[in-house]
């Protein structure tokens, strides 16, 4: 089967204060990590194979596992899947977990894109978030990757952190631009239940950032980055041609296969996801054919809904002609009522054959999406 390949590496040196992703702290080079990669190889080896539209190592902190295990896994992928040259192969890296040697080995293995978890350029903020690195780690990491010949690099930025001001965001934007990455992802900090930060906000130890300030920050970043970069998805910016191909697979509602704990796959009208606990995942892989714990059949109605709320995340919006080819019906015929209402509220617009979020609609996108689910 053809599609984007996602490989989940759930290990981190430590859990960040805000993190609600599927990740666990682990010892570097521990037997646990090695066993996990064995299971991954088994899972990849048992899959149907086909052509890879992209390969993405996400986490957790893939770089924390070290270059050898990642390269080894990529080899397992290549024995099962045809990975054409030029295929985007991304590894998520946390500053401080990767050096010269790591990037050289990754480059050799064929990795051509790095997503670097910078999160902030301010050391105090990084500490506050529970990150283990400093800004100079980020800068070193960036130059080592470039020196190794990996030229497609994305940087991640978190904003909306309690205590953060508009001036802080101005500084973050300027710093990020000075680093000249090919891609920028911005995430508004959400304080999710079960995280260390949630506990502290709940107890009143931390203030919650106002929604208005978060919105102001979002639009400030948009305006700063849009001078040089294309704002192509709600939270993502890129230089021309440097959009994240792997993530575009999700937004365009194409197929993908996930490997590892908690990873999700979509094949046509079926979606499934693996057991998310790493130990349990390994156990299931050892005992059974797969670690799939959840599987759903997507009705046409669900597929329509999902195509809308994923497609509208892209700033270009939903291509009306493309929609008709795909589903055989006019978008506006199916969703006239919703469109009228949302256009009336100034959240959605039709322009040049596309239905898309307005500028105001971007940070209110859930208001739009709920109308379609």
């Amino acid at each position, binding site marked *: 089967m053809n599609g984007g390949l996602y490989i989940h590496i759930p290990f981190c040196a430590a859990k960040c204060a805000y993190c609600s992703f599927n990740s666990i702290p682990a010892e570097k080079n521990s037997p646990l990590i090695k066993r996990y990669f064995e299971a991954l190889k088994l899972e990849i080896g048992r899959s149907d194979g086909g052509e890879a539209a992209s390969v993405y190592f996400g986490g957790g902190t893939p770089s924390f596992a070290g270059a050898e295990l990642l390269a080894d896994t990529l080899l397992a992928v290549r024995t099962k899947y045809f990975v054409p040259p030029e295929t985007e192969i991304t590894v998520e890296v946390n500053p401080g977990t990767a050096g010269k040697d790591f990037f050289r080995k990754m480059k050799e293995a064929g990795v051509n894109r790095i997503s670097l978890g910078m999160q902030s350029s301010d050391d105090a903020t990084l500490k506050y978030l529970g990150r283990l690195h400093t800004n100079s780690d980020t800068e070193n990491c960036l130059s080592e990757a470039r020196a190794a010949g990996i030229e497609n690099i994305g940087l991640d930025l978190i904003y909306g952190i309690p205590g953060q001001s508009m001036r802080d965001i101005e500084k973050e934007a300027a710093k990020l631009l000075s680093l000249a990455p090919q891609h920028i992802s911005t995430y*508004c900090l959400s304080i999710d239940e079960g995280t260390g930060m949630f506990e502290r906000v709940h107890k009143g130890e931390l203030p919650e950032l106002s*929604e208005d300030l*978060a919105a102001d920050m*979002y639009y400030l970043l948009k305006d700063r980055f849009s001078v040089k970069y294309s704002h192509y998805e709600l939270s993502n910016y890129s230089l021309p041609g440097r959009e994240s191909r792997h993530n575009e697979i999700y937004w365009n509602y194409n197929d993908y296969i996930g490997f590892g704990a908690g990873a999700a796959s979509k094949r046509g009208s079926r979606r499934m996801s693996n057991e998310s606990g790493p130990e349990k995942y390994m156990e299931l892989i050892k005992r059974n054919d797969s670690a799939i714990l959840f599987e759903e059949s997507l009705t046409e109605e669900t597929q329509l809904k999902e195509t809308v709320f994923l497609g509208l995340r892209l700033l270009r919006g939903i291509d009306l002609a493309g929609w008709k080819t795909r589903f055989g019906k006019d978008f506006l015929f199916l969703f006239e009522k919703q469109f009228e209402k949302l256009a009336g509220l100034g*959240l959605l617009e039709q322009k040049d054959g596309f239905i898309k979020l307005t500028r105001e609609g971007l940070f*209110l996108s*859930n208001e739009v999406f709920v109308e379609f*689910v």
Partner: protein
Amino acid sequence: MDASRVRNFCIIAHIDHGKSTLADRILEQTHAIASRNMKAQLLDSMDLERERGITIKAKAVRLNYHAKDGSDYVFNLIDTPGHVDFTYEVSKTLYAAEGALLVVDASQGVEAQTLANLHLALDANLTIIPVINKIDLPSAQPEKAQEQLVELGFLPEESILASAKEGIGIQEILEAVIKKVPPPKSDQTAPLRALVFDSVYDVYRGVIVFFRVKEGVIKKGDRILMMRTANEFEVLEVGVFTPEMQPADSLSAGEVGYLIANIKNVSEVKVGDTVTLATNPAAEPLPGYKEVKPMVFCGFYPVIPNEYGILKDALDRLKLNDAALLFEPESSSALGFGYRCGFLGLLHMEIIQERLEREYNIDMIATSPNVRFRVINNAGEELEVDNPAKLPDPGSIQKILEPFIKAQIIMPPDFIGPIMELCQGKRGIYKNTQYVTANRVLISYELPLSEVVFDFYDRLKSLSKGYASFDYEYLDFRESDLVKMDILVAGEPVDALSFVVHKEKAYYKGRELVTKLREIIPRQMFEVAIQASIGNKIVARETIAPLRKNVIAKCYGGDITRKRKLLEKQKEGKKRMKKVGRVDLPQEAFLAILKITD
């Protein structure tokens, strides 16, 4: 039946003092356990009942008791309604008996309902047997409870120490019933007069009427007349619950039982009415009948308009078994079509609301409760208004009257200060203070009911740390300086948010309510003004800034199912809101007025 061997009695108590446990224990001692060999038969009949869907709750049970004196007695244990809103029903039930067990929790002592029920029982001329229950508890202080009972006029040796849970004192109670409770008078020759004290609806048998024959005889086939409502029925069956239904040939003066007469609706049978024979009617009905009128009102509206029919069916069904529940269709410009419902009191309202939501699964908005106002207009005409939105134009009103209640509150003396402050804040008129014992004090207030429906009970409980107990009865209608407060959301008056308030409190309440609403109403896509007005005069205003953030600004990779579920959850939340004009109002908005403290 030999009336001298009959004893009719009931159990009265403050809530949770152990009334039901004692009743269960008495049932065990007199029936189920004594006749072990009957058990199989009983079970069979219960299975049959279950199969046919009959789950009739017996309101009176006939029990056979073999006493220490060697004789066999027949007991009729009559169930009394459990809470304060049903004072009238309780009093009618008491009239069906000659005696009452007054149960007092050994650790809690005498409470407000203990007193209220005791007074009702004394009014009904009942012989009272005080029972100090739960003596097995480590916190039990039976001697203190006894002291309190002595203060109430009982002799120290009269109180029976018991633990219904442990089966202690049950025999002694049953013997006391025989010795102290007088047998019923039995005039079988007079024309029939039977007191209706309760009724239940059963799907298969229709209405089952519970009654006490005061004079004469009633039998199957009799044509009966309900003297207050003038309804006539033919008796299809008379009988007693033992606790299974057991038909009898006839029931005569002094006996308690049930009748079935093809009655379709409990509303056709009024509690307190007198049953007589249509062919040979009694000259006078039994005294003390009252038409029960609802005192508290609120609107019920389905959140989804097309569930209106479901709401109506549900109310119809509840009404089958609840004569006190009144409802009529009503439309609100804000909420659409719904029902204005009348209740005996707040608790009654809560019970109905909960049953509609739980048993019938109706997503609905309940507007804040209000009382019935009596308006005298300039032409001198009197009209009753049970919905604040329908109060006539202030210019046409000569005066407004509102119902007052007499409240009795019992508590440890430490709480007198705060509780009196609460009552004063509720426009209460202080009547008196009375020490029940050194550490139990009773204060009486006259209060406007409209103030009691707004957050009185909860505050009473919190101010007294749960130690105060409360009982009330209706007094009369009194003139008050009342005004109607309207609430405008985004410039539109929301009729369902209107309320009637005393002029002195109007500004404060208006201000507090708009502040509360600003917290409760979620931010919308546009700025929303919330205003409180009296007539055309705006007295308070708050503004809700437009919504600016609602986004999943985070990648969950390929876990799109999770994203979709998050969105579906948000949509569900939106659905539960009521769109009024352009604004989505959550259900809490309609009850916000209840959250304002005086």
